[in-house]
């Protein structure tokens, strides 16, 4: 290959990689919501959590030891749970429990599941959550508890 063609090939690789990076950046941390009637129910025992889940909602975080964004996510979710009544933050380290990763189909960390008061999975966030979207999603869950009560 001529030197010019080789350099152009590398420029092409840079361009493709940049597109991949932009797509990743645009998608990471976004909230995916689920319907509240067909949601899977999660219990503290399912994830080996010592504590209990929140009365109104739970921020269930999955982490590993090799995850640069997990400590920051831990503080973001912990802070939100601390200042919101009835909401708990539970962090599950998957480093030593791949079967949990399988069960909840966790492909990246941090992955956060937003559970309502019943433990039903109402939303999912892959990557470091975006604070505004996270809070909006939690507010939505708190306003529509998932039982027979209909939100105002």
């Amino acid at each position, binding site marked *: 290959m001529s*030197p010019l063609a*080789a*350099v152009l090939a*590398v420029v092409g690789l840079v361009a493709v990689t940049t597109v991949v990076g932009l797509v990743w950046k645009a998608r990471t941390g976004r909230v995916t919501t689920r319907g509240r009637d067909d949601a899977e129910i999660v219990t503290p025992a399912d994830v080996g959590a010592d504590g209990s889940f929140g009365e109104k909602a739970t921020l269930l975080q999955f982490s590993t030891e*090799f995850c*640069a964004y997990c*400590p*920051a996510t831990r503080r973001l979710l912990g802070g939100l749970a601390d200042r919101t009544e009835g909401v708990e933050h539970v962090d599950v380290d998957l480093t030593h429990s791949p079967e949990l990763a399988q069960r909840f189909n966790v492909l990246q960390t*941090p992955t956060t599941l937003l559970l309502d008061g019943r433990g039903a999975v109402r939303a999912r966030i892959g*990557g470091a959550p975006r604070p505004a979207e996270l809070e909006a999603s939690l507010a939505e869950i708190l306003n529509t508890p998932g039982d027979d009560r209909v939100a105002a």
Partner: protein
Amino acid sequence: MSQPDLRPLPGTQGIDPRGPRFSAGITAVLLAVDIVLGLVGLQLAAWILLVVIAVLFLWGAVAGVQRHPYGALYRAALRPRLAPPAELEDPAPPTFAQLVGLIITGLGVVLGIWFPVIVVVAAALAFVAAFLNSVFGYCLGCQIYLLLVRAGLIRRGTGAAA
């Protein structure tokens, strides 16, 4: 996305998170040069440069990114000119990324002895990871650790490649 707020796990020495991204930038440039060398037919030069890059990954994976020469270069040349980091980061995730880089480039070095094209393929794969890490803050440990565990390529708990 908000600026990530990174702090090390309790009991670990935190590092400046910009250090590994600076190192990944140098690695990406070296890998790009390596791809060009391989493509123009300078196969021995491409192979030798990939050996050098693999040895640097080995250094990072074994000694940890805090003791890597690029980390020292960052602290000596760049860090004094920058504002202090907002947060410190646990060195385990970037050290894991060094191990992944070592495996990819190591395979390229070994297989490249018989198949020179593998040198270019390995350099291109490692380039994609290093570029994403440096430019976008992509965290290899976040994205592929669980995939490798679930694929059975990492024994659970040990963190070592099987």
